[in-house]
């Protein structure tokens, strides 16, 4: 008869499952709920990592505490681009928790990755989302809304949020799966190319908007002998849209001279009202 087999207590399951990945996905929408000047998105990052940390560090309270404190350190990036970094952190914490030799995974590398990626990804994210996707989506929406079409805002939201949600979803999932590989891709020239490509697109659309959305025209005219010469007609025969373009570049020049946007807005307000009053433009 065999000796009674001693029952070993079941090892707690410390693997990251779809459940933890989904909670990371959902929680990341609250990354900035406690945004402050001191450590910016740090508390949010910690909040998002909590379910994962609880799972992987079960039965290891000291490691859990270290991990929590680890993720309370300064962090800030474009909110949607936090996704791949989060995915990667999840993978790293899982590795750290489950490695038999603690020396295999260096805990400080987790924050090193965060710090190394948050800057470049912020640059790409700002470029892609705030300077390209949003202006494009919303300029299409504005054009429709100016015509009284309520679908304008709807289209703008749909167009923008497809890119937004896709980034947040694939960021977390791929960041987790690909980990190191993704890191290398991101560090390479891919980011720079992406930013520049986005810049080309953004510039083209901005130029188009200048031409189509500023409707100011000169109303001034000069009388030479018996002919009335309207300045706007003269301009239109050379370069239609010259007035909007000139105004934009004047304002741009003002910005370069470090005049604050608020002042510029005020100047435009006054110049607009006065110019209209003296029949210079409308």
């Amino acid at each position: 008869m065999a000796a009674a087999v001693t029952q070993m207590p079941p090892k707690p399951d410390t693997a990251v499952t779809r459940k933890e990945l989904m909670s990371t996905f959902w929680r990341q929408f609250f990354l900035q709920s406690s945004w402050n000047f001191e450590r910016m998105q740090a508390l949010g990052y910690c909040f998002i990592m909590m379910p994962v940390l609880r799972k992987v560090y079960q039965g290891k309270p000291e490691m859990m505490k270290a991990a929590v404190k680890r993720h309370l350190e300064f962090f800030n990036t474009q909110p949607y681009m936090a996704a791949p970094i989060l995915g990667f952190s999840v993978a790293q914490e899982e590795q750290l928790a489950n490695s038999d030799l603690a020396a295999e995974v260096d805990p400080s590398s987790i924050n090193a990755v965060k710090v190394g990626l948050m800057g470049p990804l912020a640059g790409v994210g700002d470029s892609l989302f705030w300077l390209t996707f949003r202006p494009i989506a919303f300029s299409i929406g504005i054009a429709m809304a100016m015509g009284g079409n309520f679908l304008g805002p709807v289209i703008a939201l749909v167009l923008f949020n497809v890119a937004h949600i896709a980034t947040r979803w694939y960021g977390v999932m791929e960041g987790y799966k690909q980990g190191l590989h993704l890191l290398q891709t991101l560090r390479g020239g891919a980011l720079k190319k992406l930013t520049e490509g986005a810049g080309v697109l953004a510039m083209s659309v901005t130029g188009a908007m200048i031409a189509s959305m500023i409707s100011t025209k000169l109303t001034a005219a000069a009388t030479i002998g018996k002919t009335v010469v309207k300045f706007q007609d003269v301009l239109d025969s050379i370069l239609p849209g010259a007035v909007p373009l000139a105004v934009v570049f004047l304002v741009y020049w003002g910005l370069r001279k470090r005049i604050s946007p608020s002042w510029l807005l005020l100047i435009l307000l006054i110049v607009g009202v006065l110019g209209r009053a003296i029949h210079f433009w409308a």
Partner: protein
Amino acid sequence: MFGTALLVGILVGVIAMEALASFQFQFARPLVLGPIVGLVLGDAALGLKIGAELELIWMGIVGIGAAVPPDVVVGTGIATALAILTHSNTEVALALAVPVALGAQLIDIFVRTLNAGLIHRADRLADAGDYRGIELTHLSGLGLFFLRGFIPTFLAIWLGADWVKALVTNLPEWLTQGLATSGSLMAALGFAMLIQMIGAKKLMPYLFLGFALVVFLKVSLIAVAVIGAVFAFLHIQFAYKSTEEE
């Protein structure tokens, strides 16, 4: 007016929570918030129009890094609501929105400064091992963001509507016409800011490309976006070709 002020205040407060502290689906942008406020107050069409105009001016207003931009949410909310409630027009809304957004920006900075208290509390909770507490502390930040939207909006509408109405009915015609011109000009700021932020001088030719396409070929905005995307691909190929061949 109290009930209306409360209603619009809560609406703007909720959207203010979405603007930065959660989701960020861009419901906080004028193009979306304008019509929503309009819908709630019974003049969605005017709300849509104001929203579109404000979106143009503020197209370049972006929060990058630690920079706190003028408060587009409260600016849009108050301006749209007051314009509708006083039965006036887009020009009035534009004139109101700008100073309001600047004032509300200060409140935004204040809130983000106060929030530092939350992370300090989280530090203490981490030492004590109270992880649930950390999560709740983080989420409590939403409350301040709600208030920064609610309080100014509620006060402006409750106290301001009658005052603004009196002002508006006495506006001379040259001023209202002038404001319409200004509104068109102010969009130039939005575009100039975008250009400045995109930054790369070598990309300027593409600005003229988009401009020329519309001015001479009368092409639609979506067409320019597609053509621009094509140029983006080509640009990357040519610009980086030399470095790859090395």
